[in-house]
């Protein structure tokens, strides 16, 4: 009898909203299991396979990859091009976000559309745009050849392609952040007699620094990892115009899997580092959008 009462009470409880029933608990665990299985197959397995294959012939074989002069030159080229691209794009991101977030002017949405464009265009088309301009059959091809300047199949082309693909990242982090924070403090600083640069460095920059850091890190990761656009403009000259992602392709197509995945493991670590920095930036209270 007591049992019957308790069961009835439990049944009554179960019909209340927000209560756990067998159905809701079962559904919850089913959905969690489906999510984790999907991510494990599509994300974790590929990530794990990078390191497992890279070390499949032991640490020695892994390290041997980095003794190869071509691999070293690919790493050097990746670092050099990122060292040019990231500061320039940071400068652009700061200028564009100041101009767009602090002022109201005509044609602002057009500028915003242009900034978003590289994110919507295929990387292959991004690279092709510069081949059409600077390639031998391109608009400036003959002029460049007459003046002995090489852009396509050389370092300048790689830098320009990486710049095109990654310039939105800093700007897109900073613009919403600056808009959200408003202009009051800057206006107060200016009206009280602070100079323009002082206002920027002492008022604006400290407010947006976490967004700026994340934008720069993301821009760097994308620049170092860019494949499609760089592949179109670089010409794949081994030891000369091969960046790390292109070198991965070459090693992979030569069936040198240990080498390909060893180089890939460095870029994977870079991506993991980027995500760690993003997560810790968000923990400081700064949220994207």
């Amino acid at each position, binding site marked *: 009898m007591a049992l019957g009462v308790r069961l009835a009470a439990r049944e009554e409880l179960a019909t209340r909203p927000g209560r756990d029933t067998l159905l809701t608990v079962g559904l919850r665990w089913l959905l969690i299991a489906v999510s984790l299985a999907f991510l494990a197959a599509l994300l974790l397995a590929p990530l794990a396979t990078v390191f497992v294959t890279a070390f499949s012939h032991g640490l020695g074989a892994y390290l041997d990859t980095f003794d190869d002069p071509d691999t070293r030159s690919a790493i050097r080229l990746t670092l050099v091009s990122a060292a040019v691209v990231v500061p320039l794009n940071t400068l652009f991101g700061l200028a564009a976000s100041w101009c767009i977030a602090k002022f109201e002017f005509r044609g602002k949405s057009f500028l915003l559309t*242009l900034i978003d464009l590289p994110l*919507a265009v295929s*990387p*292959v*088309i991004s690279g*092709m745009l510069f081949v059409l301009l600077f390639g031998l059959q*391109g608009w400036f091809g003959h002029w460049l050849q007459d003046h002995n300047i090489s852009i396509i199949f050389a370092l300048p082309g790689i830098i320009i392609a990486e710049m095109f693909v990654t310039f939105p990242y800093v700007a897109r982090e900073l613009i919403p952040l600056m808009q959200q924070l408003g202009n009051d403090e800057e206006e107060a600083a200016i009206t009280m007699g602070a100079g323009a640069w002082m*206002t920027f460095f002492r008022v604006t920059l400290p407010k947006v620094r976490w967004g700026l850091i994340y934008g720069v890190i993301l821009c760097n990761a994308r620049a170092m990892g860019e494949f*499609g656009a760089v592949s179109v403009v670089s010409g794949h000259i081994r030891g000369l115009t091969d960046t790390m992602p292109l070198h991965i392709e070459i090693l992979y197509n030569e069936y040198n899997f240990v080498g390909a995945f060893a180089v890939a493991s460095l870029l994977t670590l870079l991506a993991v580092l980027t995500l760690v920095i993003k997560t810790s930036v968000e923990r400081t209270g700064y949220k994207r959008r």
Partner: protein
Amino acid sequence: MPAERFRQPSVLPGFGLTFGFTTFFLSALVLLPLAALALMAGSMHWSDFVRVVLSARALGSYRLSFGASFLAATTNLAFGFVIAWTLVRYQFPGRKAVDALIDMPFALPTAVSGIALTSVFAANGWIGRYLAAFGIQVAYTWIGVTVALTLIGMPFMVRTLQPAIAEVQRDLEDAAETLGAGRLYVFRRIVLPTVLPAMLTGFTLAFARAVGEYGSVIFIAGNLPMKTEITPLLIVIHLQEFDYRGAAALGSVMLVISFVVLLTINLIHSWGRRRLVATAH
């Protein structure tokens, strides 16, 4: 009547400098190259243009690129919803780590995800060997292309859906349940209408990203003409043969089709908004 000002007055300095730098940068890096593309495609005779963009090989590549992108975005619609729902509504150990991991395809270089997916889904790979036992070949077929495009689009779907699911009012759901509505009815009438715009946006973003994707696809695709050759690869092949006009023609067709798809989905989107507002009254 005074002419409308180009810019509203502000006490803040630096407009001239930052506006000048921004427009110069964008003109040199974006507008000039786009003009080069338009001129290059426009300088072709129309019959040559048609011959390139409607060749059997090109048509085959559109079918794969747009078809696989559509399938991948649809897959993401289902799994992306489940993942976003799980991350927003449920507490489980490791939730924060899983949430951080969602952005991985966005940060990981496409060449790395390409070779890694290929080795996992190849016939002797960790997952591919079990699928091969059922006679399903993933790597070097259109299924492999779809798998790669699903991975690439996943963060866009999940990140668009998360805030929308968080916005669903739980007291509405509870109220509906006390009034006797079943879970499915609550889902269909309360949850779905709220997240539908986000689902469409996520679908659009995932689809648009997938259509242009190159690096992660070419390793797993097999790249056989007419069968497993995506349009971006066909553009690369034209460029390698120094056929700049053909490449520009294909590139402009891709840009136009993507633009039309985006426009259509935006129209559906705004129609959905209007319908939602109309039913609310």
